[in-house]
């Protein structure tokens, strides 16, 4: 199902210069827990809404990425990012204070791949010295947006997915580092007719085929 129209090779050298991750409690207890430098055990992160908490996760992930690479917001030419909420609200408030040119994306589950691909295109094409790809989700905000209130006693079938409470960012640039983005490919929409809201894995699997 490969289509040459959508494949890209980044020949000028696009490298992962920095990254940052911030996650919630459940993620901090999971099999990948050792990969997460920043784990918040409070679902609200001390904020008064879950949406604000999601923005904070992004902010913390960005901050971590800046620290790791000893960079400042002025060193980034563009931020590409999004989340699952209406108008990508978590991302807007998450990256607002950094004052970096921003493009909001909505790819839902593909958002990290989408933002990384576009950030790499910016850098490889010479339109940005350095670009950030950022994505977040929060279990509690996603439940409210797409499903039921948290306190409602609904039942999950065994195929239901659990939205991660996490934010991640990757800075890509021209400075040579260990990890390089060599290429990318834009997927086509592949609809094999799965309509079950509680089986998104089956709905999305053909897309990555």
């Amino acid at each position, binding site marked *: 199902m490969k289509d040459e129209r959508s494949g890209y090779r980044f020949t000028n050298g696009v490298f992962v210069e920095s990254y940052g991750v911030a996650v919630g409690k459940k993620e901090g207890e999971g099999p990948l827990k050792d990969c997460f430098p920043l784990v918040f055990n409070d679902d609200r992160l001390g904020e008064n809404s879950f949406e604000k908490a999601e923005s904070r996760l992004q902010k913390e992930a960005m901050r971590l990425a800046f620290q790791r690479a000893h960079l400042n917001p002025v060193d980034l030419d563009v931020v590409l990012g999004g989340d699952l909420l209406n108008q990508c609200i978590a991302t807007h408030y998450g990256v607002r204070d950094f004052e970096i040119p921003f493009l909001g994306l909505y790819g839902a589950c593909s958002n990290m791949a989408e933002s990384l691909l576009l950030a790499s295109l910016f850098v490889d094409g010479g339109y940005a010295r350095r670009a950030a790809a950022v994505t977040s989700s929060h279990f509690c905000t996603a439940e409210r947006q797409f499903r039921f*209130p*948290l306190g409602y*006693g609904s039942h999950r079938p*065994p*195929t239901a997915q659990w939205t991660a409470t996490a934010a991640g960012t990757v800075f890509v640039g021209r400075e040579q580092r260990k990890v390089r983005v060599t290429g990318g490919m834009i997927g086509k929409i592949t609809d094999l*007719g799965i309509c079950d809201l509680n089986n998104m894995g089956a709905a999305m699997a053909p897309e990555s085929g």
Partner: protein
Amino acid sequence: MTLSKKEYGEMAKKASPNTKFYLTLPKAFVIGGLICTLGQVFVNYYQSLNLGDTLSGTATSVTLIFLSALLTGLGLYSKLSKHGGAGTLVPITGFANAVVSPALEFKSEGMILGLAAKLFVISGPVIVYGMAAAWLYGLYYYFFG
């Protein structure tokens, strides 16, 4: 590999784990049954206070609704319903939970456009179609009853 929608649907169905009905059904039966038994305890108690049949029933409903709202507020009702399933959904306590949980959830969007506007987001359809069914039944009863 090209799959038709039908073939893929069958594959997905085969790969999806089923609900363990041999666990969920008895749990729903027991927990739902316990809620109803609790209701009966209240009915007997109110009757012993000489409230009469109708008032005892009403007082029991009010008590169960209060308990469900309280448990929802404490974040316990969803934990109970994780095991109870339809056993916690069908009794009056489930309806109370369906009203209180959006109230708590949307409080952060304000008291009017949040809490009040979204209060019936789950229970609204039940009320709408419940009323419609009542009208239809009323009409039938009026003309043919």
